[in-house]
């Protein structure tokens, strides 16, 4: 309903002709018969494979970068929680690194890796790693001693203790870390692709800008929004709910 109202308002503004159609294209009903609409471009883009292919490229980069960030973040987080000296050194450094927007790394990435996939992966990973590190170290640090002591007297130690107690006990923190890291990764990849890398949704956005095709730009924004919502609902919310149900926490 709310979405319908937004669409209606958009259509009215578009039809009033205050702005040229290329700047403010209608969503569903074309201004002139057979003219462009965002909806038409979106459907066309999906069927022609243009948007679909770009989405595939972006998502695969995103997943790889995100995966690297999660692995690094969990490792750093564990080391920070486990060793005081790592906390004093790396822990402090991470706080500083976290405040640097990941796109700031881009010039460096281009020089190091060239303008391409690796550079994009680099900034996606680096954008998500630090927040994952901060969250997971908080999770590991806050594992109540009583769980660890109980497990130790029941014969657990070392990697078994890590796998069966420390990791599961940190899961609530880790999930919120994943969620924020995912959002950071999205921002990083869009910025990176916009600034230059073949393929991907960001590249398509840039194409839309240079050909003054706002219908394309808006289509892509819709795609990004839809993907974001689906991931959030289907993946992260589900994870949170299942943990909340098990632990008896409120969502």
């Amino acid at each position, binding site marked *: 309903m709310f979405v319908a109202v937004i669409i209606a308002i958009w259509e009215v503004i578009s039809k009033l002709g205050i702005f040229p159609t290329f700047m403010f294209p209608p969503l569903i009903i074309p201004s002139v018969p057979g003219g462009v609409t965002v909806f038409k471009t979106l459907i066309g883009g999906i069927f022609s494979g243009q948007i679909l292919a770009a989405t595939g490229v972006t998502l695969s980069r995103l997943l790889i970068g995100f995966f690297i960030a999660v692995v690094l973040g969990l490792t750093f987080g564990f080391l920070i929680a486990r060793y005081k000296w790592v906390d004093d050194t790396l822990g402090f450094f991470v706080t500083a690194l976290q405040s640097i927007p990941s796109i700031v790394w881009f010039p460096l990435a281009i020089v190091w890796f060239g303008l391409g996939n690796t550079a994009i992966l680099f900034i996606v990973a680096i954008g998500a790693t630090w927040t994952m590190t901060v969250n997971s170290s908080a999770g590991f640090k806050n594992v*109540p001693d*009583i*769980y660890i*002591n*109980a*497990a*130790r*007297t*029941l*014969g*657990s*130690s070392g990697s*078994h203790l890590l796998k*069966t*107690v420390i990791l*599961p*006990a940190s*899961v609530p923190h880790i999930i919120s870390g994943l969620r924020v890291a995912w959002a950071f990764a999205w921002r990083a990849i869009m910025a990176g692709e916009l600034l230059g890398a073949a393929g991907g949704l960001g590249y398509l956005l840039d194409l839309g800008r240079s050909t003054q095709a706002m219908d394309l730009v808006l289509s892509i924004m819709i795609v990004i929004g839809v993907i974001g919502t689906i991931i959030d609902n289907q993946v992260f919310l589900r994870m949170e709910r299942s*943990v909340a149900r*098990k*632990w*008896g926490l409120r969502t």
Partner: protein
Amino acid sequence: MKVSLKKVNKSFQKGKDDTLKVLNDIDFNIEEGEFVSLAGPSGCGKSTILKLIAGLDSPTSGEVLVNGNKVKGPGTDRVVVFQEGGLFPWMTVFENVTYGLLRKKMSKKEAEEKAMDGLRMVHLINFRESYPHELSGGMKQRVAIARALVMDPDVLLMDEPFAALDEQTRLVLHRELQKIWQETGKTILFITHNIREALTLSDRVLLMSTRPGAVKKEFTVQAARPRDPSDSNIVDLERRVMEELEEEMEKVLKEEFGNDYHLEKSHVRSSDHSDMGSHI
């Protein structure tokens, strides 16, 4: 002798040159199959003693022996039942109980059978698929007891396991624990600040004094089991323990309130007197 502490001292580093002595020359033995309680005010180091025996902490000096062997770390021959909250919330009751068993490299089938026996003993067989948060406080502690007992430890260490429970539930669990103890013949060390609880459950109560913690006095409880807290023997002993404790409590209160504690006491008395005079 099942458990033996010899001249055990424990200090914690407080600041750079400041150490806090929590245990001073602790010396006691627990015989095979004996039920012994360590009782005393909070901060007397009774939980620290349990941690030393469990191997979760090590003494600054002295020796802790279990079965004649020096304690070097945690081991499944000494399992702890912690205060409420010791169960793993991400595991079901059944998974909690089988946790230690599976770690023992026993077959899954055997572990599951033992876990079922354990749960049957504490009457929670129907709750095996529940998560801890779905259970009441008393049920959680029963699961914790089952989780410890299935390990078949030489010594069962209990760290204020019933402290967070309501009186009703606690009385039920006292009866159940005594029954389990009589059936299994386990050696039990029970930590509590509740004197009546200690006297109801144990063969012997070690009363601790505080700062630094030391065993102040030992009481042997000779009353028929299953025990009734209103048994004249226990009531009599409770009075004697309380007298001993009063001294300790004063020490604790003085430390908590500083000099105010004494000031207030004398102040109350003097104002009482003046009131009496003015109303005549």
